[in-house]
């Protein structure tokens, strides 16, 4: 059976840690950095469970700051 896998690249310096992508991800892939902040002082997002990502791009659509590039590939 073909398997679909996804991945998300985060533009850390654009990210404001708004948590919207985290809430929107159906696969619990994302999380805000609990301690680390970017140069603007925001706890940016990172992939806590990258393997869960299906590349559905929900996160990308709702990110207000266009920080996310979403990849998706079908593996045979």
């Amino acid at each position, binding site marked *: 059976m073909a398997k679909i896998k996804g*991945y998300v690249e985060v533009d850390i310096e654009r990210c404001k840690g708004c948590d919207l992508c985290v809430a929107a991800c159906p696969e619990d892939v994302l999380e805000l950095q609990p301690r680390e902040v970017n140069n603007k002082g925001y706890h940016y997002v990172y992939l806590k469970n990258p393997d869960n990502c299906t590349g559905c791009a929900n996160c990308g659509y709702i990110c207000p700051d266009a920080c996310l590039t979403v990849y998706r590939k079908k593996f045979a």
Partner: protein
Amino acid sequence: MNENNIVNPENIVYKKPKLMNDNYMHYCLGCSHGVVHKIIAEVIEELGLEEKTIGIAPVGCAVFAYNYIDIDWVEAAHGRAPAVATAIKRLNPDKMVFTYQGDGDLAAIGTAETIHACNRGENIAIVFINNAIYGMTGGQMAPTTLPNMKTSTTPRGRDVRMTGNPIKILDMLVQLNGVCFATRHSVHTAAAVKKAKKAIKHAFENAMGGKGTSIVEIVSTCNAGWKMTPVEANNWMVENMFPMYPLGDLKNI
């Protein structure tokens, strides 16, 4: 499995629109404005209107829209974007002219300009961000603020006996013959974003097609003004804003 297999341009299913530049957006974390900006950038690109589009930025949080989407822009005085757009479109009928306006801008100070541009059926598109508050100036009551909603000028909640009920401006505008398309959307989920995009695309097509005035209301959050987290704000919007401002087409001819 190696992520490098995936991270390859050909596998991209979502990314920052090309017309959106790298400028860091001034909006608060989680603000709906950013999402709508992305949509607009995508639509202009998809319709191939980069060289034909003139955007009118409002006075409101979106005043700096011109910093983020690489098209020609004119920043209008507070509330006057429809008048500004009227002239540009009339003088340049082959251009795609749209305004981007907040609820204070469009439905308070700009009420007359909005109604008369719509009545004349100017061939423009209006993107209307209804976040039920004056974001830019620090969260004062807007015409669309919900009953009992707290803002900095209604600290005990909007008392409709004193300030009137929220104005559903779209319901008024649909009565005007000049309006060809009036619809209400939101951008709080991926599905909603996709629908909103379709609407904005249709509006821009109408503007090019000379069909009259299109207005796309985006029921939005202003988490800063509402004093909530962005996630809370989305939930609050669904629960409280949608009943007052139901999503969907009001007119599409």
